[in-house]
């Protein structure tokens, strides 16, 4: 199985929940936002959502996310080591 490494530069992409372009475009729905903090009586603000290439093993390497990211924060590379 060939696997892709999907890396998100969190220094460049600070508030992913305000953009969400990579989430919408990925054909394999690799990306996922998850909440970093939950508080009573409060709706989570955009800053509390963390973006991760959650289902990275499903990445096909089509590079759509790399092309669409306005901040140039996503890197997709094929993994070098061979895996079973």
């Amino acid at each position, binding site marked *: *199985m060939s*696997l892709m490494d999907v890396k998100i530069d*969190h220094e460049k992409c600070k508030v992913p*929940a305000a953009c*969400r372009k990579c*989430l*919408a475009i990925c054909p*394999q*729905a690799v*990306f*996922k*936002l*998850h*909440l*970093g*903090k*939950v*508080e*009573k*009586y*409060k*709706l*989570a603000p955009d800053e509390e959502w*963390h973006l*991760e290439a*959650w*289902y*990275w*093993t*499903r990445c096909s390497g089509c590079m759509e996310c790399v092309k669409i990211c306005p901040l140039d924060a996503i890197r997709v590379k094929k993994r070098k080591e061979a*895996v*079973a």
Partner: protein
Amino acid sequence: MCHFCTKHGDGGKWFENAANFAARMYSNRKKKTEKEEKFVQHMGSEALKIDPDHPEKSRMYATPPIITEDIADNPWAQQKMFETRSKFPYQMDSNGDVKIPKGAVVDLDIMFTDLLKEVVDATGVEADKVPQLKRKVASFMGNYHFGQVITLEETLDMLELTYPIGMMQCICRRETRGQMAPGEANFCFSLGVGIYKWERWPETFRGLTFLSVKEAKEMITHYNKKGLVHSLWTFNVPYIGGICNCEYPVCQGIRGRLDYGVESIILKGEWCAKPIYENCTGCGNCVRYCQFGAMSMQLSRNKVAIDMKKCFGCGQCEKHCPNSAIEMVERRKTPGISDLW
């Protein structure tokens, strides 16, 4: 009949057993089981802080206190304590059975995605660890939060059995597709008295609107026409907490089962689709609606092909066939698939 119906069905389908809906039954059962297996659904009373860049600094709850009197007669009290990546505590025995420790404050959805993430990260990298991790997710879901695919008719029946019904934003679509604008992706139905308390916690409430049975039925019929698969979810098994209208790949339950092979996250339905070749004209309309990859076209014959071993029995193909060329057969009466749940 799978073991869930045997355990929670009282002789029939588990989800038609009123004890799994009624508020009084729920509180009675809760009192009865409180002693041995109580945990608390996370309601945001304490801030949940997870710092993905510095996991070692993340702060959640203190480890639940160990009550010494319990250790002697409760074998689980001696089991080792583990933590998910969001710092929710759980215990695991040598068989890979998972239990949430007494007094712990957890969020079942976040715990599920955390445990599934371990499977995802091990897939293709540490192949030898995968079966054990899968077993862990399966055990967790089976004990606390499994779902099952149901047909339109069963869904409509369910809506008459339960009260109240609220429509809310789908958590899977919100997280994996970023559909988080208010009113966007309102695909999930929440059932049962538990939802009243949620008003205090907008993150769980997710713009919930209460619906009458008639309105809810209209919405479900609308979603069915769109092609969405209805699934029934338990929150704290066997209490029924929601009906979702799912699709692959955004539904994390379907995904966990199809992509990562963790069964017992979402069980197959009570039915299975079977083609009637005399009626099939080969229009291929039904193939569009299969979310589970069970359908294809036999091009040489110009007929549809259904892999009944892959079929989840959602009934979408039957509903969208213009020539009634698909019939639904009962899974438990079809020997070859009767134990595939």
